[in-house]
């Protein structure tokens, strides 16, 4: 990559002077990934974000653009995560009738289940001798990405490691909910959906919408409430330790 001709190098420096090259690459990868995902019949283990990231990582590495320069340009997109997090409040409000109807079971299960979703993984990682940075990155593993990224930044973890953990968690949660509901003989779509959203954030919610609309609505609810609960309590809990 060092023996590029002069003209290519000057073109690269012109292109990377503005963030638009990163924006174009990200948009392109996003669109190609959506298309590939549908072509491969929506595989549970390979969500579109994984396909897009693989494509981008290949391009960024092979062209010699480098991750740092790419990421700097892509900030023009990632800055929108702030308002996008606020936007999650709208569907949460629209689910409010479910919360009102079922506030008692939600109040009993959510705080405990959302705490355990973080605590099990943190406990195991801590026992295996993980560094504080790794622990901080894994803590929001069941929280939807925009909220999780905020939590990780507050705790001083690595956002990229968090996002990797989120992907793995989302895919695993979809598979495990499938096994466990069969084993525990649970047929209530509201419970299945809530568990998918609570443990598997957006990836679990997407899976729940494939089961039924009720499961999907409860998954959105579980995802939203887990996100808010974890974002409010996890940083405070971390301060105590």
């Amino acid at each position, binding site marked *: 990559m060092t023996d590029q001709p002069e003209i290519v190098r000057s073109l690269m420096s012109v292109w990377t002077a503005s963030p638009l090259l990163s924006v174009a690459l*990200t948009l392109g990868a*996003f669109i190609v990934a959506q298309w590939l995902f549908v072509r491969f019949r929506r595989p549970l283990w390979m969500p*579109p974000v994984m396909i*897009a*990231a*693989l494509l981008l*990582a290949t391009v*960024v590495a092979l062209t010699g653009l480098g*991750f740092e320069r790419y990421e700097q340009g*892509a900030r023009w*997109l990632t800055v929108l*995560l*702030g*308002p996008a*997090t*606020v*936007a999650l*409040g*709208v*569907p*949460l*409000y629209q689910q409010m009738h479910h919360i009102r109807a079922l506030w008692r*079971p939600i109040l*009993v*299960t959510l705080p405990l*289940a959302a705490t*355990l979703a973080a605590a099990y*993984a943190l406990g195991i990682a801590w026992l295996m*001798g*993980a560094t504080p940075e*790794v622990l901080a990155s*894994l803590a929001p*593993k069941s929280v939807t*990405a*925009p*909220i999780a*990224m*905020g939590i990780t930044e*507050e705790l001083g973890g*690595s956002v*990229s*490691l968090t996002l*990797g953990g989120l*992907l*793995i968690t989302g895919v*695993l949660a979809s598979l*495990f*909910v499938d096994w*466990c509901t069969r084993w*525990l003989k*649970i047929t*209530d779509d509201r*419970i299945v959906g809530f*568990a998918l959203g*609570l*443990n598997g954030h957006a990836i679990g919610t997407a899976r729940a919408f494939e089961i039924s609309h009720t499961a999907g609505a409860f998954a959105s609810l579980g995802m939203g409430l887990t996100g*808010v609960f974890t974002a*409010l309590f996890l*940083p*405070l809990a971390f301060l105590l330790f």
Partner: protein
Amino acid sequence: MVMLRGFLVLVVFFLLGEAVRVFAGLPVSGGVLGMVMATVTLMVRGRVSTELATASQGLISILVLLITPGVVGVFFIADQFYGHWATVLVALVIGTLLSVFTTLLLMKKVAALGKEGGSHDRSA
């Protein structure tokens, strides 16, 4: 225009969230605080405007696009976390299995309790 008005509302709530974070010294991200304030505002008002609904739907539909640059980073931090990958994977696999199982068991028990509690008005 409709989309832009809704977008402005979202950005203003985000900025308000950041303001609360700084003034109250909370270790919670401005986006989450903005989301909580937006939800509470909607509950008080009792309805969502078309502008806000359109703008939030638009942003939520491109969430995957917005997190992709961060996910790309996963492939470039392999060296930084060399020696931690086994820990990360074991923690995620076992942790997620345990938490999925506990959630389902807990909800099954609570749902059963709810029925014994005598709510005859709800059949499902």
